[in-house]
């Protein structure tokens, strides 16, 4: 089922909130919404491009050199994304610094190639990449929104609270990233725990604890 390939990556197997992959960029670049968005879009592009290409060549690539080939494909898309960002949004490109180039070593991307794209058809692989890419992007945007609103008192650079608001600078520094990520993880597991409890039929005998 194709929609399931998408939804799985966004929610049930969200790369950051469930698989806990890609935490390095999640913590490092989410100090503003604009940075989060650029990082999310760049990763989304690399993931979709790589998944389609890997899926296309999956029967041609011998097993022994498959990882090298995947990394080569991923690195190519990352370099293209890097150049495109520098040409289109130089300010954001400067703010993201080395983290664009480091998408190459983002486990989310190689993970999807190994676990999915190298074994499935092109259309399913694209759907899977779209799901995981959106899952990553949404998580980054959540982090970025919380941190920028509290830490800089603005959203996408637009001041929200007027001059009297003293920005909670802690939130745009690294500790604020850890705190925000922790709270998001807490919310996600709390939600899942509640769903599981609701799914268990009321009055049914409890499993032995």
């Amino acid at each position, binding site marked *: 089922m194709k929609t399931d390939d998408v939804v799985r990556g966004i929610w049930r197997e969200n790369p950051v909130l469930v698989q806990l992959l890609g935490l390095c960029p999640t913590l490092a670049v989410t100090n503003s919404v604009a940075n989060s968005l650029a990082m999310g879009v760049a990763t989304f592009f690399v993931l979709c491009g790589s998944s389609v290409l890997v899926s296309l060549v999956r029967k041609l690539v011998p097993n022994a050199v498959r990882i090298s080939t995947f990394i080569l*494909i991923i690195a190519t898309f990352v370099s293209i994304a890097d*150049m495109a960002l520098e*040409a289109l949004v*130089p300010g954001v490109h400067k703010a993201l610094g080395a983290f664009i180039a480091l998408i190459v070593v983002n486990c989310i991307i190689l993970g999807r190639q190994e676990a999915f794209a190298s074994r499935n058809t092109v259309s399913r692989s694209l759907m899977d990449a779209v799901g995981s890419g959106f899952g990553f992007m949404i998580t980054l945007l959540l982090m970025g929104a919380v941190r920028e609103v509290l830490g800089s008192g603005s959203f996408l650079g637009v001041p929200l609270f007027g001059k009297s608001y003293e920005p909670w600078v802690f939130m745009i*520094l690294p500790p604020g990233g850890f705190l925000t990520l922790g709270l998001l993880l807490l919310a996600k597991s709390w939600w899942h725990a509640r769903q599981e409890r609701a799914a268990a039929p009321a009055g049914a005998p409890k499993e032995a604890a």
Partner: protein
Amino acid sequence: MNGPPAPPASSPGRLVSTLAGAGALAGFLLVVAFQATQPTIAAHKEEMLKRAVLEVLREPARFEPLDVAGERVYAGYDAAGKRVGYAIVAAAPGFADTVKVIFGYDPVTRRLLGMKVLESKETPGLGDKIEQEPFVREFEGAMTPLAGVKGGGAGEGIDMITGATISSRTVIGIINRALERLGPVLEREEARG
């Protein structure tokens, strides 16, 4: 190993040709992307530099690059063709990574015209104030060599940022060292006219 039986090994030729093919495709894609984006990137960089030079020389009518003691500086001229000063780019390690600044200098009065931070990764909320208003203002018309002062007050000297002493000192140090190197040369240049 107890895993499933390994698939039959491919011939070395097959492995090499696969990687070579993937490499060639990657190279081709990179060249296309580079060709497509390069002019825009170069134009952006030139535009950024131009804006920075105009800003630190207080909007001269025109400016032109000049090589002084092996370094590239930008000489600014007013509408009458009189030289108003030089814009100098210099860098040094700050609190986090390299800080790169451009500043305008007038060798006649030995005062700064302006300062702008081109690159810095100083701590957000503390060190990054070196890029912002009150601190940048301190450099306009400041007497060189620069001296950092704490606690503010009137008079000469750069009022350093509370909580960002290292970042403040870095900027002051970059400018002082650049002028130690270039100041005398620029003064001689100026004397010659």
